[in-house]
């Protein structure tokens, strides 16, 4: 018996015997399936936000204020006698049926069917009740001024996507061209570019960004420019390093002899050799950009309201954390999932495309 067990263990260890579950797990571990799926979902929701969002993300309906997500029980918030605005309501915070029994109303199927019915039942008994109603119409609930949270998160995906893509292209253009020039020409140009990059890294970016926003106002353009000038530095460093080794290759010398212009050599002969590095850094950088955008929006220096931005949505829910945790919770989860997927994908790409970059961080 013992022998049989040992050989089974051995088989499992050397991977000769695989069950289907293990195979799936191995597949998931080897390929970045989950990150890719989440990122595809992000891009899909970003593009088709208008179709996917169940409600308009900008229209606020005060009676939907702070309504809970669908799986949370509907509760009676507070009840007061009559509708005199000077009478202070009693806090209740109990599920509908319980609250009704408290005020001597018999709960039936009809009067607990929806918000209007419950309120009508209370009114009949002479009370004015404030009800928090969860429904499939607002799956993730409503935010602090009654906008549908899910719709705002979906549209927020689009906003993040647009801002980050533009900022990244901006950073790529500056960073890669500066890296190419610094690496290829060397000497004084190299020294100047690298020192500027160092000094740039020496500035507390978030504060400079805030100053710029106070100076120029909170607009989309400013935010994109700011994120753009944040994103270029790592490209310079790494592209330069690549170019230093690439420019000594024989095919570059041959191109020179053949009379190619410097521009042509840089773009057609050297740039393709740096693509792997660029892809890896860009992927890792996008996560950082999304986080920075979220932080700026959270501080009120990012995407101007009322456009839905995940960071700003977390801030919206901050004063209501006592009784409406979902307003802050879900946008944060969205940020987390996207950034984590990007980090995973970036690490995976780095191991595949450019293992030397492992030292980066």
């Amino acid at each position, binding site marked *: 018996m013992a022998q049989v067990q040992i050989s089974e263990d051995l088989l499992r260890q050397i991977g000769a015997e695989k069950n289907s579950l293990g195979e799936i797990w191995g597949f998931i571990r080897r390929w970045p399936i989950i990150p890719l799926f989440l990122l595809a979902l992000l891009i899909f929701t970003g593009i088709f936000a208008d179709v996917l969002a169940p409600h308009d993300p900008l229209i606020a309906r005060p009676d939907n204020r702070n309504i809970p997500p669908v799986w949370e029980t509907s509760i009676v918030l507070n009840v007061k006698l009559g509708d005199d605005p000077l009478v202070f309501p009693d806090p209740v915070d109990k599920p509908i049926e319980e609250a009704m029994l408290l005020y001597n109303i018999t709960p039936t199927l009809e009067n607990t069917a929806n918000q209007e019915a419950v309120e009508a039942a209370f009114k009949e008994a002479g009370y004015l009740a404030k009800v928090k109603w969860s429904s499939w119409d607002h799956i993730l609930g409503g935010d602090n001024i009654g906008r549908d949270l899910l719709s705002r998160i979906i549209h927020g995906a689009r906003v993040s996507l647009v801002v980050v893509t533009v900022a990244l292209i901006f950073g790529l253009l500056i960073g890669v061209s500066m890296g190419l020039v610094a690496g290829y020409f060397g000497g004084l140009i190299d020294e100047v570019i690298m020192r500027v990059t160092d000094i740039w890294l020496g500035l*507390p*970016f978030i*504060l400079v960004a805030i*100053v710029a926003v106070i100076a120029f106002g909170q607009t989309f353009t400013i935010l994109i420019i700011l994120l753009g000038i944040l994103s270029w530095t790592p490209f310079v460093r790494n592209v330069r390093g690549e170019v230093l080794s690439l420019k000594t290759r024989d095919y570059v010398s041959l191109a020179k002899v053949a009379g190619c212009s410097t521009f042509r050599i840089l773009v057609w002969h050297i740039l393709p050799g740096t693509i792997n590095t660029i892809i890896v850094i860009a992927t890792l950088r996008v996560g950082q950009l999304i986080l920075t955008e979220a932080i700026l929006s*959270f501080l009120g220096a990012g995407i101007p309201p009322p456009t839905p931005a995940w960071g700003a949505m*977390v801030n919206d829910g901050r004063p209501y954390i006592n009784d409406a945790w979902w307003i802050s919770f879900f946008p944060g989860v969205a940020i987390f999932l996207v950034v984590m997927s990007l980090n995973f994908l970036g690490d995976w790409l780095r191991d595949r495309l450019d293992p030397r970059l492992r030292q980066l*961080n």
Partner: protein
Amino acid sequence: MEGALRMITFLVRRIIFACFAMIGATFITFGLSRAAGDPRYLYAQEGGYGITPERWDALGVEMGLDKPVVWQYAVWLGNILKGNWQDSLLDRKDVFGKIVDRLPPTLKFALASYIFAGVLGIPLGVLSAVSRGSLWDYLGRGFALFGQALPVFWVGIMLILVFSVKLRWFPTGTLGDGFFDWKYYVLPTVTLGWIAAATYLRLVRSSMLEILDSEFIKLARAKGVSYNTLIWKHGFRNALIAPLTFSSLLLTGFITGAVVTETIFSIPGLGRLAFEAITNNDFPIMVGVVLVWTALYVTMNFFTDMIYALVDPRIRYT
């Protein structure tokens, strides 16, 4: 002898570099203050009431706007160096005084977070490297992963939700009255130190793995050096160098984190001052905060470079 000379050259280079970074910061803040339009608009809107054309011109002369921009910059820089900073727009108080008032809470809780990050991150990093592939390693790496991807502000709010609102373990808001009221420090310290701890963990782990794989460790093992000496004296001491170089990275994270954390926990520090400046559109305060913070940042960076050069004799003095 030659080594000492190179050390001095390195020192001088770093000082010059630090100066350039500071000058860069003044350029940017001054440039932004002028690029945003006539600075007089900070005091009075165009076509607003209560300001006559004469007063407008007088204000211009008072602020030196009739002089060339380079001159304006020189005057501005001179005033900053003399400690003669502008008044804040909202309550017309000296910005320098305001910043000095707000500095202690930030320094206190940033130090607490730094200690927290080191105490949590470094041992966990060693542990997960030593027992690679074990449960500890998975836990440590999972923690590092979360630390990198979770937004600071969200972590802070969720900590408040769980530990102050639901469980009622810790108070939130301000740092308490006394010099160090630990209950008030727990949540902000964890919020700010979380990312730094994760970064430390990751760096210590990877450099520890690299060191443990090197030849001199194998030699020590072959000689029969005890396990603890091997890990702590041979491995850890060498592995600590890499995280040191990344201290500047941590510092940047701290600045961003402090603004956010102080905002969430209503700590009356420098970061909160920056946040209030955004809400009140108070430009002079923001300029002051940026300059003070850049100065702090540049000085800290300078010292970490120095420590790094002292700790690791192999460093190229460039």
